[in-house]
């Protein structure tokens, strides 16, 4: 095997650049739907730039865990991004890990984020960590099951292999297993990216927040890294959803033309998906915290059904 | 010497054995302590008589030794010693069995029947009398029942001794000549010593508990 240095660099750049845009886009569209003008789609870039230039205040109770967390979150998000096929069917770091590594790395980021929330001795941080870990404990198996459904069909856990298998003859989305798994995965996406109805990314209302509660003590460049990491994670998850369930348009080779076409397809799919997310956010209210597990359990059950149906309809 | 038992002697022995059983039944219903002891003496006397008859009829002279030992030990010495004990501990004229008199009679009857059933396969083996073995087993079982039914320590000892009588009767009945002399003497002395040990204990119990009622000895459990 050989590591395609160019591909790595390109995809890293893509992740770094596209992720804030996607966040901005979703925010903007949401505002539009709510009859507001909303911030411009470039706003996240400005925010990041500003955070990076700001001085930092670090809690006197915090330890090195607090310091390490932003880097871990940022790097795991990037690493995950390099493992997910985006423009080409072959992800740059495909060989270093497939679906399981993706889930594992995301969990590692979350692990540190939760520790970072606990570190400054604030009750909010603890609350956020507790909720985050609880919800992810249910979301993660659902995600894993829905990926398993695809992995079993493809006979591999490597995402590229899954994509390649999906690109094979036959339009698989009509397969009930796929549909159910997609539904489950979509719910997981909402939960993992902190979207309504699970979490409200726009609020700082103390009692309802989850993700934001963990970040409360972060400022300056650490906040930038974490926010950036979060938006990369959002991009990666959406890419995952878009590419492994709808593996059309991914470039089979690395000729510029194919990659360009892949980029177009990719952006198109992301826009559609972002639209769906915005619509969901717009039409739903945030759930009570103890109702959220019901939603996630529904995802879990959908994923299980997906799995059972691969068994039944094969 | 291998003379077959004569009809008369055999009948005589059967009669004596039956008398022993009757005495046993009397013991079962008798409540007076001293009378009980004397009844036991009478029973032992009957046993000694049987032994004498056997010794005379068959010329088995060492059985006579058994008879003499029984006479000295069980007819004379033990009753005397026990009566002395009763006098010394001063109580126990009345005894209250667990099962009332008619019921005890009934049970003793049933046990006697059982003994006959048990002894039936062995009647052919008996040399003496026709039912001696059955009587012996009946003595054993009714003696056992007496032991269970009586509260006073001394009556329990007496019951044990009547069982012993049953055993001796069985020994004579089954083996004609009794057992080897060493064994007989050994058994005899053991029994005497046993009774004396029992007497010592009874005396100590009387001192410690102010009572001879063994049903009150229920401190130790589980």
């Amino acid at each position, binding site marked *: 095997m050989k590591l395609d240095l160019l591909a790595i660099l390109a995809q890293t750049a893509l992740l770094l650049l596209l992720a804030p845009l996607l966040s901005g886009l979703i925010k903007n569209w949401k505002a539009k739907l709510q009859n507001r003008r909303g911030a411009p789609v470039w706003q996240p870039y400005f925010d990041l730039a500003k955070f990076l230039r700001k001085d930092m205040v670090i809690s006197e109770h915090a330890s090195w865990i607090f310091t390490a967390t932003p880097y871990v979150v940022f790097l795991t998000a990037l690493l995950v991004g390099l493992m997910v096929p985006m423009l080409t069917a072959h992800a740059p770091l495909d060989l270093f890990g497939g679906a399981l590594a993706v889930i594992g790395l995301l969990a590692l980021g979350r692990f540190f984020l939760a520790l970072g929330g606990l570190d400054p001795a604030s009750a909010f941080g603890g609350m956020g960590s507790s909720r985050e870990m609880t919800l992810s404990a249910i979301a993660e198996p659902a995600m894993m099951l829905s990926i398993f459904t695809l992995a079993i069909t493809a006979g591999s856990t490597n995402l590229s292999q899954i994509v390649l298998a999906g690109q094979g003859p036959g339009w698989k989305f009509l397969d009930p297993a796929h549909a159910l798994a997609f539904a489950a995965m979509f719910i997981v996406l909402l939960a993992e990216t902190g979207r309504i109805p699970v979490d409200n990314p726009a609020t700082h209302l103390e009692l309802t927040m989850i993700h934001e509660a963990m970040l409360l003590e972060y400022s300056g460049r650490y906040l930038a890294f974490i926010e950036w990491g979060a938006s990369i994670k959002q991009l990666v998850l959406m890419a995952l959803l878009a590419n492994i369930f709808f593996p059309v348009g991914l470039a089979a080779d690395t000729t510029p033309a194919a990659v360009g076409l892949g980029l177009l397809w990719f952006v198109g799919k992301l826009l559609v998906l972002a639209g769906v997310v915005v619509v969901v956010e717009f039409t739903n209210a945030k759930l009570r915290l103890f109702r959220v597990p019901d939603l996630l359990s529904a995802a879990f059950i959908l994923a299980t059904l997906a799995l059972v149906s691969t068994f039944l309809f094969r | 010497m291998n003379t077959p038992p004569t009809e008369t002697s055999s009948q005589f022995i059967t009669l004596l054995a039956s008398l022993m059983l009757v005495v046993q039944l009397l013991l079962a219903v008798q409540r007076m302590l001293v009378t009980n002891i004397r009844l036991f003496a009478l029973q032992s006397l009957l046993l000694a008589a049987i032994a004498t008859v056997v010794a005379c009829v068959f010329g088995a002279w060492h059985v006579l030794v058994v008879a003499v030992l029984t006479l000295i030990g069980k007819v004379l010495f033990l009753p005397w010693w026990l009566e002395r004990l009763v006098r010394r501990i001063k109580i126990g004229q009345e005894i209250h069995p667990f099962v009332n008199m008619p019921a005890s009679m009934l049970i003793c009857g049933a046990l006697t029947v059982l003994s006959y059933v048990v002894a039936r396969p062995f009647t052919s083996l008996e040399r003496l009398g026709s039912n001696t073995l059955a009587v012996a087993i009946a003595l054993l079982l009714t003696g056992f029942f007496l032991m269970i039914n009586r509260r006073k320590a001394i009556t329990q000892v007496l019951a044990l001794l009547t069982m012993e009588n049953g055993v001796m009767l069985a020994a004579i009945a089954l*083996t004609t000549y009794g057992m*080897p002399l060493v064994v007989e003497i050994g*058994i005899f002395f053991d029994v005497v010593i046993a009774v004396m040990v029992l007497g010592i204990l009874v005396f100590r119990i009387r001192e410690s508990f102010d009572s001879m009622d063994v049903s009150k000895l229920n401190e*130790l459990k*589980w």
Partner: protein
Amino acid sequence: MLLTTILCVPLVVGLLCLFVRPRALMEALNIAGFVGVLVLGVKLFHAVLAKNGAAVTEWNEFLRADALSAWMVLLISVVSLATSLYAVRYFRSDLTSGIATARRVREFYVLTPTFATGMLLVVLANNLGVMWAAVEVTALSSVLLVALYNRKTSLEAAWKYVMLGGLGLVLALFGTIFAYAAAISPTGGGAHLPSFNWSHLLAMAPQLNPHLITLAFVFVLVGYGTKAGLAPMHTWLPDAHSEAPSPTSAMLSGVSLKIAVYALLRFHILTTACLGTGYSRNLLLGFGLFSMLLAGPFILTQKNLKRMLAYSSLEHVGLICVAVGMNAPLTVFGALLHMGYHALTKPVLFFTAGNIHQHYHTLDFTRIGGGLVRTMPATALLLGLAAAAVSGLPPFGLFVSELTVLVGGFTSGHVWVSVVILTTLIIVFCGVLDKLAGLLLGPGHAEPPRETISAGHIMAMGWPLGALLLFTAWLPGSVRQLMEQASGIIRGLP
């Protein structure tokens, strides 16, 4: 004259103790006597081995020692020696605290050799009647020992012991007479008295009257079974064991029960040889299993240390009977091995119980309240070790013997019996562990102060455990040979 000497040594010691004054002399006499018996026992052991299957006899076969007897003689001598060594400190301490009087102590030193003589006679007598008389001697001497303290409870225990034991002996006598009668009838009632010797009866076993032998075995089973503490005739056992002075408890539990089992075994061999069926075997198996099963609940709910130990003895006697009842080479061998190992373990347990009683003046678990490792470290250590041994934990030999029995049971088709044995062993273990953990461990109270015990006394108490460990790690080939011969005798092999 080896057998006679073995019998005479303790008897003479007992008689001498009647007359000597100083206590130290009595102690020394006892110890010396039992050392002598042990030495003679080892000599007998070699003599029997040298006979290569035949028996050592004396007095025209009046005394007879085969491998089984020799094995029992060894057990008796070891336990008696352990007892006499322990008794020194025990009674000195009793005397200083005024619990026992000098007269009582003398009684002990006279009766214990008598007790031992009785037991030795049981195993050495060839004549079944004499054997019976000897069992009676052991019963009577031990009754007086049980009643030694003259407390209310000890009198009660003695009374129950003597009444139930006496009753059992009467029944056993009845059975013995039947066995004798069974021997007479085939000879046609000749003028000559048939020999009442066991070896003689065994030789003519096929001609014995099977009905009478069956009847005899029933009576002997109930009779000697009472003495051996087989359930449901065992009821005297916990009382007597708990109320006797601890040295006596050790003798009772360590060998006396096994002596009764031995007597039972002699009849079992005879019955099997005569009937040629598993009649007596199955009865032994049934009673043994019942004893084992019954011990469990009592141990689980026990409140008194010595009673718990007594029920443990019940269980072990049951195990021995079951093992003999299964009648496979391994099980019988295991049973004999188990007798030996148990005889080395149980006395130590009772010795420690004696120490605890003298220290706390009670054996009630709740009243002692635990913490023995603090207040009496040496005793607690020995108790813990011995309890581990008696529960069948390695590295102690009872694990080996129990597992041998189980293996034998499995390979001889008694799978379910083995499962029941194992289950009861586990239940008993749970009970013992629960009680002893409460007794030994814990913070303990400030009162009473720590025990003072010299190293010599610890040795005197604990040496059987050392012997147990030694013989677990290394079982001399000659001992194994002896046990194999004995197991051959029990299984009726020529």
